[in-house]
């Protein structure tokens, strides 16, 4: 009976909520119990946004994630705000091209990913989130990596099917880092 609590945070517009939705859908397709809860408020582009995702083998109680096992921080305010909340032994994945400090905690595993920089170089500026998520999926071994294609087809909207290959590429860049 395993439960993984995930918190994803960053600027509005970085695809934070979408990243959470992707992970939740992946869980659903793998037959897990899942919840996805966004922070909501008078938020705007450039402000902070976050979402809580829980993946579990058993029914989920509270959908809130005050103590994440996995933190994805896409900007400095997010790392500042949530670093201390991560459980000992947990994992922090962060966009090291936007966050110019190291993780201070020594009792967690830190994974710096220069995602925004790579995304720029690869011509996929809006997919830094998928690069970090690729790294997270690989390191956490939450799901089998070969199940991801199915999820992409499900999550990427019908109007944007042309982006499927690009999303796949972003995830694989992250996972192979």
């Amino acid at each position, binding site marked *: 009976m395993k439960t993984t609590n995930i918190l994803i945070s960053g600027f509005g517009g970085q695809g934070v909520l979408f990243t959470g939705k992707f992970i939740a859908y992946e869980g659903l397709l793998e037959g897990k119990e899942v919840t996805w809860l966004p922070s909501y408020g008078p938020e705007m582009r450039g402000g902070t946004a976050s979402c809580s995702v829980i993946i579990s083998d058993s029914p989920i109680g509270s*959908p809130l994630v005050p103590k994440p096992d996995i933190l994805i921080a896409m900007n400095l305010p997010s790392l500042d705000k949530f670093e201390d909340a991560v459980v000992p032994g947990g994992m922090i994945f962060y966009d090291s091209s936007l966050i110019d400090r190291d993780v201070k905690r020594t009792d967690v595993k830190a994974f710096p990913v220069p995602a925004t920089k790579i995304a720029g170089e690869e011509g996929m500026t809006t997919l830094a989130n998928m690069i970090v998520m690729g790294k997270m999926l690989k390191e956490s071994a939450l799901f089998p990596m070969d199940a991801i294609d199915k999820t992409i087809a499900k999550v990427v909207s019908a109007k944007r099917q042309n982006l499927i290959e690009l999303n796949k590429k972003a995830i694989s860049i992250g996972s192979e880092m």
Partner: protein
Amino acid sequence: MADKVLMKGNEALAEAAIMAGCRHYFGYPITPQTEVAAYLAKRMPQIGGTFLQAESEVAAINMVIGVASAGKRVMTSSSSPGISLKSEGLSYLAGCDLPALVVNVQRGGPGLGGIQPSQSDYFQATRGAGHGDFHMLVLAPASVQEMASLVFKGFDLADKYRMTTMILADGTMGQMMEPVSLDMGSVNEYDKSWAVTGTKCERKHNIINSLSLLPEELEQWNIRRYDMYKKIEEREVMYDEYMTEDADIIVVAFGVAARVARNAIVAAREKGIKAGLVRPITLWPFPKEILKQRAKNAKAFVSVELSTGQMIEDIELAIRCTRPVLLASRVGGMIPTPEEVLEKIEEAQKIGGEA
């Protein structure tokens, strides 16, 4: 699992309303229920239904009265301050004995309050939705699945008893996504020969009205309604239980508070405290009988609420104050943590042991 989709509570609720045969929606945007209106704005035109963004909440509830009078399934939704504006209409719906479905995705109050989740409209929903002697059926979903299934059920109950069903949700239930099955089953048809649909000169006029200037007559209207409420209290109570069989401490919570309470109960059990959860699904009618029954073996109760203590009064009434009832609560848009609830359970264990 294959047939399940990931949806926001507000959207699942809206889709379930369509599946229940609702083709008329009137509303006005307010966080955190706006997705209900946004979803229906997209869906209703596709299926020949009516989506109308009214000029105000007051206008929307009066449009609901109109469609309900014509015997069609109709819904409006809002969040706390907007529900207060609908108060007059809710009283008129009751006075006219009209079926309708009203959704309150609660936020912190009073006044404009905030936009984060709350359960502080419990009194309003179960006691004072408007002036006069009346009740609404009040259903409290605790998952996205229930956001859908209780709307489906809520329309049915509204038609069955010709009264308003309120879905009393909170910001969390509206905003969160969970896997949901939209396999809702078939829609029951009810006799609506009372509806004002035009006589075609073939029958007597039907009249929908809440005014009577003869106190003898108005008294009878009220008594008839309360006789029906009694039947509803016997027939329609819904609740869920978790680990209550051997419980010394009975936690009572609905909606998101029940989800948090479940974590706390698991933690309490790990510490050797026999705690269990009674989760009211109908807040009116309140599940009094099961609480009375559980009080026989329980030492103490804990009410978990996102309010300063409203449902706790119903718990005390239900068990006639035979056991101590403690309150675990956060307000103003805050949600208690499982640890905070666990602390109360431990305190209840201590007090219960002394009693």
